[in-house]
């Protein structure tokens, strides 16, 4: 199986309170921010690796995982890290965040898909910076491929189809997709028994979470191929249609109050908050 994983770097969500907005309100100040891979993309990569291996021998890829990002040169740090974790090749499309919107990213990915011809595109359900939750769906639409969003489990079947479990209100909705297809993943995709390739024994349990890049693999990642493309090469003339009007920080939260005991809490919930 060949899988394309789309990755995006985001300002470290643990330091979200360091985000600054200049008085002009026309952008988010990115200088001095620490960058990390969008956590859902980390999960997407883990899912793709699990789908292209026998879980007992995770160092040998069965198939290929190609990672792609749109961003400035510094994003190669995140790509190298993905290569160290197990991806085979990387592609970076030169771009700045301001020059992109979800639609344009989906167009760019479509061009990359046309070239790479993966069986699956696996991506995070959303990026935690803008929380737009658009690109996966838009890409499936542009490709006219089947799609499963918010995947919590993926199982490759012997016949080549994939079963995707999606957690929905009141239960699990299971879809059977015939590749090529687009899958966006939710956080439970990295649980120990969430993803099985057809090579992995169903009794196998993965370590919970995303695998660690082994130190020798970090060194070897330097030698893995990383191709760079221009934005024009992959967008076919499409331009962003969304433009940002204004940025504002959320208002500072007012301090809460302390109640002296449970009785007072209940009384206030009933009379002030009127929720009881």
């Amino acid at each position: 199986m060949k899988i394309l994983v789309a990755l995006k770097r985001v300002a470290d969500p643990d330091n979200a309170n360091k985000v600054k907005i200049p008085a002009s309100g026309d952008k988010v100040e990115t200088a001095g921010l620490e960058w990390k891979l969008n956590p859902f993309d980390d999960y997407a990569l883990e899912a793709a690796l699990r789908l292209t291996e026998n879980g007992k021998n995770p160092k040998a890829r069965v198939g290929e995982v190609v990672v792609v990002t749109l961003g400035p040169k510094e994003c190669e740090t995140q790509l190298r890290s993905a290569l160290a974790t197990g991806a085979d090749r990387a592609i970076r499309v030169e771009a700045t965040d301001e020059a992109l919107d979800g639609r344009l990213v989906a167009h760019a990915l479509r061009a990359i898909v046309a070239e790479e011809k993966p069986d699956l595109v696996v991506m995070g359900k959303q990026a935690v910076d803008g929380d737009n939750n658009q690109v996966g769906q838009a890409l499936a639409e542009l490709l006219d491929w089947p799609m499963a969003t918010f995947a919590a489990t993926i199982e490759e079947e012997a016949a080549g189809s994939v079963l995707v479990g999606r957690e929905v209100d009141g239960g699990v909705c299971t879809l059977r997709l015939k590749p090529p297809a687009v899958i966006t993943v939710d956080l439970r995709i990295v649980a120990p028994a969430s993803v099985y390739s057809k090579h992995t024994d169903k009794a196998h349990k993965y370590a919970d979470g995303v695998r660690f890049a082994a130190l020798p693999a970090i060194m070897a990642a330097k030698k893995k191929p990383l191709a760079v493309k221009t934005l024009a090469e992959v967008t076919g003339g499409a331009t962003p249609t969304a433009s940002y009007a204004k940025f504002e920080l959320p208002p500072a939260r007012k301090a809460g109050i302390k109640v002296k005991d449970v009785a007072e809490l209940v009384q206030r919930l009933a009379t002030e908050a009127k929720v009881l």
Partner: protein
Amino acid sequence: MEPLSLDALSEIDTHLSDEERMVRDSVRRFVRERYAARAGELFEEERFPVELIPELAELGVLGAGLKGYGCAGMSAVEYGLILQELEYGDGGLRSFVSVQGSLAMYAIHAYGSEEQKQKYLPEMAQGKLIGCFGLTEPDSGSDPGSMTTRARRDGDSWVLSGTKMWITNSPLAHLAVVWAKVDDGGPESIQGFIVERGARGFETPKIHGKMSLRASETGEIVLDECRVPASAILPNKRGLGGPLGCLTQARFGISWGVLGAAKACFESTVEYARTRVQFGVPIASKQLMQERLVEMAVEIVKGDLLALHFGRIKDRHGRLRPEQVSLCKRENVRTALDVARSCRAVLGGNGILLEYPAIRHMLNLESVYTYEGTHEVHTLVLGKALTGLDAF
């Protein structure tokens, strides 16, 4: 206002390559996800988590500083960064890795025959064989030249007798690198021997009741007319320089490692001082408290710079002078111990609970102060180098 982190204050990252940061971040994530939450409990239980050994091996940290034989071949700076992250978790975890890599594997790598390297190193890197390093004896600590363990040649074998004391990993080791005087020789006759568990007359009783490095197993090595094959000797080094050469490697790593302990104490303590309210305000808003925190931060940043400076030299020249390593070990261990004690005080009563990392690191660092050459011994090494006069 959000507090500035130590890393942001020192901007140490600007001196690190992408690979170096990736190596650090991978080990950092491992330690925080797989070890940190259990650190207090393991300390309390006096237990090294052997179940983590395959994961440590998979990550590539065992013998990471060595080249070839299935080892990761990390640079001195990368190796230092790894140990720092490990000791952020616990000194016991770091000790396990230091002894396996810098002492046991290094001895075989540097002084062993090709057959010995092939036989042991790949499996040691994979964590299938655990090693330990037996130099210290009940009556021979800072003065290892006074050791009384002897090796006697008898036909096709060597017969070892003596007792080693305070040996990290010995209770769980599959093999021990043991240093002994050969026949009736003096310190110049000292050689290393690889003793495999199972050899008759080889025992490793565990030392109980340690109040420091409790998550690291420490034991004796009792050699009672222990017979090993002629091929067990490490052929390529004679004299006290053998074990001391290994210690120089391990000490360099320790000078990085201890800063991990200091950072763990500092970070958790700043957090505590910002939220602990006395006299109506957070204690961190008091000048006395800020002075304490500032002293700690300055010393930690200086320690980082010291370690990095000498790490770069080690990478460039392939080695450091032993005096330079003494300087790093002595200074950074003292810094870390001072920081841990100061953090313990800032935490007040909570500072004596295992729930907070300070007292655990503080207690661990008491061992680190003593092992790998005591603080005083490193003072003597430097004193001798600087004056040309031996004060041992």
